[in-house]
């Protein structure tokens, strides 16, 4: 039996046995990737965060904290006629964030292309969220014009992310037109109504060859988590965060919910036994 005292030299000479690799739990500080997850790939650009954040309707001074609490890497914005007195939203967005201009205000494909080109001139990004609407009550996207705009913009080298009504056939046509992702609405923009289009989004997810990003209507973190459990690749939220009492805290709640939903999806959800209990304790050895 070796009873020699441990010396400094002997400690150095004895390598530690291989240690199990510690995986960072989901929802803590970077790295944010759940176990064995792949990055979100949009047109060849990779992102670790699966939360896309709208930039607006709250105090500009809150944007930085909100982006940081959200852990987001992509922030959307709109293009409008410039006012010299306005602060620029770009001054408030932290370095390293990918800007995703939208084409809101466009009523047809040509107008969307015009806005996308102007947006590219402002910030030299190829990313564009195509958004084509005709009226303000429902703000429903025009899928036919969106498909046309997607084809035109993809040919010009844009990374096209079309906002769409969740029609699985239109989703396929958007892919064929060159979309880098599809962004079906969960419910009406800004309504906080949640995943009302679930059945059709599930069909889109089951058949998609590009990322499916749930956009519009996601009103609370549990709904974002639900969308990710379904297999959505990312969630975009705007009103739900902007209308919260504590905006940065709600952004963090969304981040955690999205990460939890993603981890659950990757884990594989358990089977549902409709109307039938399954005992979780042994059914033998009872005391009667």
């Amino acid at each position, binding site marked *: 039996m070796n009873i020699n005292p441990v010396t400094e030299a002997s400690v150095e000479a004895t390598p530690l046995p291989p240690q199990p690799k510690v995986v960072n739990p989901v929802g803590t500080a970077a790295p944010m990737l759940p176990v064995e997850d792949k990055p979100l790939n949009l047109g060849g650009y990779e992102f670790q965060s699966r939360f896309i954040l*709208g930039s607006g309707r709250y105090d500009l001074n809150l944007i930085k904290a909100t982006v940081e609490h959200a852990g987001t890497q992509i922030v959307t914005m*709109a293009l409008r*006629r*410039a006012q010299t007195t306005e602060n620029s939203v*770009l001054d408030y967005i932290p370095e390293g964030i990918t800007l995703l201009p*939208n084409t809101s205000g466009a009523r047809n494909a040509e107008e969307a292309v*015009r806005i996308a080109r102007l*947006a590219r*001139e402002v910030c030299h990004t190829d990313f564009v969220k195509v958004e084509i609407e005709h009226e303000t009550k429902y703000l429903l996207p025009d899928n036919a014009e969106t498909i046309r705009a997607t084809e035109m913009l993809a040919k010009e080298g844009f990374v096209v992310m079309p906002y769409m009504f969740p029609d699985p056939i239109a989703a396929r046509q958007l892919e064929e037109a060159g979309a880098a992702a599809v962004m079906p609405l969960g419910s009406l923009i800004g309504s906080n109504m949640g995943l009302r289009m679930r059945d059709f989004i599930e069909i889109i997810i089951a058949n998609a060859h590009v990322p499916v990003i749930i956009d519009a209507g996601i009103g609370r973190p549990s709904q974002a988590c639900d969308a990710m459990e379904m297999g959505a690749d990312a969630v*975009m939220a705007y009103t739900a965060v902007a209308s919260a009492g504590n905006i940065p805290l709600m952004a963090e709640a969304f981040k955690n919910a999205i990460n939890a939903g993603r981890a659950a999806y990757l884990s594989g959800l358990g089977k549902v036994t409709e109307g039938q209990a399954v005992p979780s304790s042994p059914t033998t050895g009872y005391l009667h």
Partner: protein
Amino acid sequence: MQVNGEQVKLETPVSVADYLEAHGFRAERVAIELNGEIIPREKRGDTMLDDQCVMEIVQFVQGG
């Protein structure tokens, strides 16, 4: 000429770059469309405005 949908009087011909500076626009934050064509940043100094021009000066705003 017309700027962002409004009629404005142009006293003397100026370049796009000079117009932006004179009216307090931040050149690095805006895009310019002149008579339907985007004027790239590097051409703003050489592109002259006249009474018949229709110019759009756009910038990013908060939005989803």
